[in-house]
């Protein structure tokens, strides 16, 4: 034990006090952020998860290229699928890290010493949150080489990275914040993980419902209100189906609202009330109840006012007053290629139309008129539009991914949706596209292999470098 004298200590303390007056202290959120960052990335769970993520991405890109069926998927769709999976894994990482942030500290008995400092609770939570979302930029960076590989030079790459970054930067903070909120209310890590993973699965469930359950007003609403499904729908429409942002921006409302709700709860309500025990303050619950109900009411008003599918209109236009045209007559392509075209629906009548459905049909001419299941050929068999005003028109973009060689006729049918169970309507057929599919092409799996293996190897090297740097910083006794 040291025998430093009182005089010596006082002198040292004075020195510290003087230095404190001269130097600049750093904000608490920054200190906590740096501390948590080191904890997550130096031998921590973020590093391990990112390594697993890179391996998963490598496997995925290799499977896409190796499996001849999958490799026939057009680049746009492959990019979309890769992006969707990258985001799903990133959200999982964010949620798991968030779920450990507070309850984990409680369980490891490290939270109390932090709460005993004069640091503001809100700043502690903010610093932790920033560290919690740190794996997302790394995950996005790791995904880019894989997206480049599967895009095969397609122009979808730029928008995919841009919109992936934007939507991911909305969802990842929201999911991480959600994990932290659950963690805030959980006294044990087990409960926190269990609840967080339950919520994660809950958001994934709508995508697993049968196709019919995902259509119609209720199905569409369910997708629209689910932030993950809404983002996937938006990306799918914009990246794969050439739909404009102006058409589908409303699908970003629920992710933004979800993020705002979660982060609002985290920083305005939960953060300042951070304490050693989990969710046992009656005062706090009352405060939370009143504020949350206000937010929910405002959110409900927002949803009902902007959800496009809820704004049903009825019309009585006869089918004869509708027309549908296609901007393509013939096309000669190879298997694996994509055919893109647009249809225009016009209301020639003098009153608003019924809501309209445009359905794609493909007939195999070589096989004496066999019907081809468009589900295999196109990411979208039908498209829906609201009632058209008199004289109004609407354009739809379509894609056909050619699967098998042959001679085909593609045509569209415009169906006005009947307004009631005892009403019907008159479908209208479009001109056809004579489609000749000649030959087979696919992605070379050998060329993809270096990327599939290289990604995880680069991450692993990064981990080893970090480990080595850390070893030099500490005494290894």
């Amino acid at each position, binding site marked *: *034990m*040291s025998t*430093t004298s*009182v005089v010596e*200590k006082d002198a*040292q*303390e004075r*020195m*510290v006090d003087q*230095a*404190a007056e*001269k*130097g*600049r*202290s*750093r904000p*608490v959120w920054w*200190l906590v952020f740096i*501390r948590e960052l*080191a*904890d997550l990335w*130096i*031998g*921590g769970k973020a590093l391990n998860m990112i390594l697993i993520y890179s391996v998963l991405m490598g496997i995925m890109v290799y499977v896409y290229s190796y499996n001849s069926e999958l490799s026939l998927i057009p680049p746009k769709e492959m990019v979309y699928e890769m992006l969707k999976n990258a985001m799903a894994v990133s959200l999982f990482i964010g949620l798991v890290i968030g779920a450990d942030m507070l309850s984990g*500290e409680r369980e*490891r*008995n*490290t939270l*109390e*010493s*932090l*709460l*005993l*400092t*004069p*640091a*503001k609770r809100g700043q502690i939570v903010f610093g932790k949150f920033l560290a919690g979302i740190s794996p997302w930029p790394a995950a996005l960076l790791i995904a880019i080489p894989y997206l480049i590989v599967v895009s095969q030079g397609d122009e979808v790459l730029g928008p995919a990275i841009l919109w992936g970054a934007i939507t991911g930067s909305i969802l990842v903070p929201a999911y991480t914040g959600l994990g932290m909120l659950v963690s805030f209310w959980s006294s044990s890590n087990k409960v926190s993980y269990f609840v967080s993973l339950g919520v994660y699965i809950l958001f994934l469930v709508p995508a697993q419902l049968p196709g019919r359950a995902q259509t119609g007003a209720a199905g569409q609403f369910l997708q629209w209100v689910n932030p993950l499904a809404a983002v996937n729908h938006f990306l799918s429409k914009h990246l794969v189906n050439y739909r404009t942002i102006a058409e589908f921006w409303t699908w970003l409302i629920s992710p933004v609202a979800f993020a705002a709700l979660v982060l609002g709860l985290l920083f305005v309500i939960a953060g300042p009330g951070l*304490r*050693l025990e989990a969710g046992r303050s009656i005062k706090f619950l009352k405060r939370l109840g009143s504020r949350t109900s206000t937010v929910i009411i405002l959110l409900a008003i927002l949803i009902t006012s902007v959800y496009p599918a809820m704004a049903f209109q009825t019309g009585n236009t006869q089918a004869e007053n509708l027309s549908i045209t296609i901007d393509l007559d013939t096309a000669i392509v190879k298997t694996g290629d994509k055919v893109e075209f647009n249809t225009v629906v016009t209301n020639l009548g003098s009153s608003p139309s019924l809501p309209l459905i445009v359905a794609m049909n493909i007939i195999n001419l070589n096989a004496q008129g066999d019907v081809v299941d468009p589900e295999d050929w196109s990411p979208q068999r039908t498209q829906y539009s609201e009632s058209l005003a008199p004289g109004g028109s609407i354009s739809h973009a379509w894609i056909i991914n050619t699967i098998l060689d042959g001679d085909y006729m593609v045509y569209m049918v415009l169906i006005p949706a009947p307004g009631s169970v005892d009403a019907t309507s008159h479908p209208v057929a479009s001109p056809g596209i004579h489609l000749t599919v000649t030959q087979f092409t696919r992605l070379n799996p050998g060329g993809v292999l270096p990327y599939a293996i290289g990604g995880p190897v680069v991450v692993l090297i990064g981990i080893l470098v970090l480990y080595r740097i*850390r070893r030099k*910083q*500490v*005494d290894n*006794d």
Partner: protein
Amino acid sequence: MKSNNNHTAAPKDQREVLVVEGIQKMYGNRRALKGLTFTLLAGRVMGFLGPNGAGKTTSIRILTTIMEPDAGHFTVDGIEFDQPEKIRRKIGVLPENLGFPRQMTAVEYLVYFGQLYGLPPQSAKTNAMRLLNVVGLENRTKSLISSFSHGMRQRLGIARALVNNPVVVFLDEPTLGLDPRGQQELLLLIQRIAREHQTGVILCSHMLSEIEGICDDVIILSSGQVVAQGAVNSVIGDIQRNIARVRVPPENVDTSLELLSAIPNVFKVSSDPQMRGWLSVELADFIAADSQSGNLRNAILKVLIQSEIPVLSYEAEGGRLQDVFLQLTEEVIK
């Protein structure tokens, strides 16, 4: 235990660093604290005693602003309890179960906490090195905390509690799990910190001998209420029971019972059926003054020696803090 403690009464001119008045806390329908009131002076070590569930941890959590009281109030160095952030700048705490980030070094840990208290990086580092020197970890500054023994972690915890030069330090079971040498070193360190820095120290412990060894004052809690408080000697003196325990060879028990019962002012003599050879000699209640009690105790020994009965052991029951603790907490439980 060696210590320089003489359990002196508090000098009147010492500063009051912690004043607690009527603190109460309910958990549902159960009253965990029933009007905790005491004052801690600068430079003094106060022992906080009580059986499990007595309200020690609740008291510490309230006084360290982790929990709010339902009634009552307290001040730390003159700062009212409703200003928790200001109070946290004045206190240092070693919680009972303190976890450490395993991937940090000792100096990184203290620098981090120093900065959380507002020190700039360089000052925080200087402060950290000084504290590691104070707690005897100057040779392990760059070692990972995961490589530390339990005793070293406790010392690091104490260093962390001192990182802001607190006026009051709360130490909850600081010696738990330490070997005897480690316990002694840590207790001497605590006493030195109190004396040299004029810091008020609240020491929570189940180890009554260590409280008795280094504390100036003591508070005994039972079922949420204070059952004794004051300078250690004073508390022991108030409760001291006039019982002497004598051990003689088993074959001399009957003779000894007769001889001792015949001594004037000996109220009752009994033998312990469980521990053959042990006799309990209860002195009359009015034997209170030290001189009277001492003479009578000498008389007990004299009678036995004159009768050539070997005295194998002798102790005055009720002269230790442990006896006081057991008696008071037992009374409250009853």
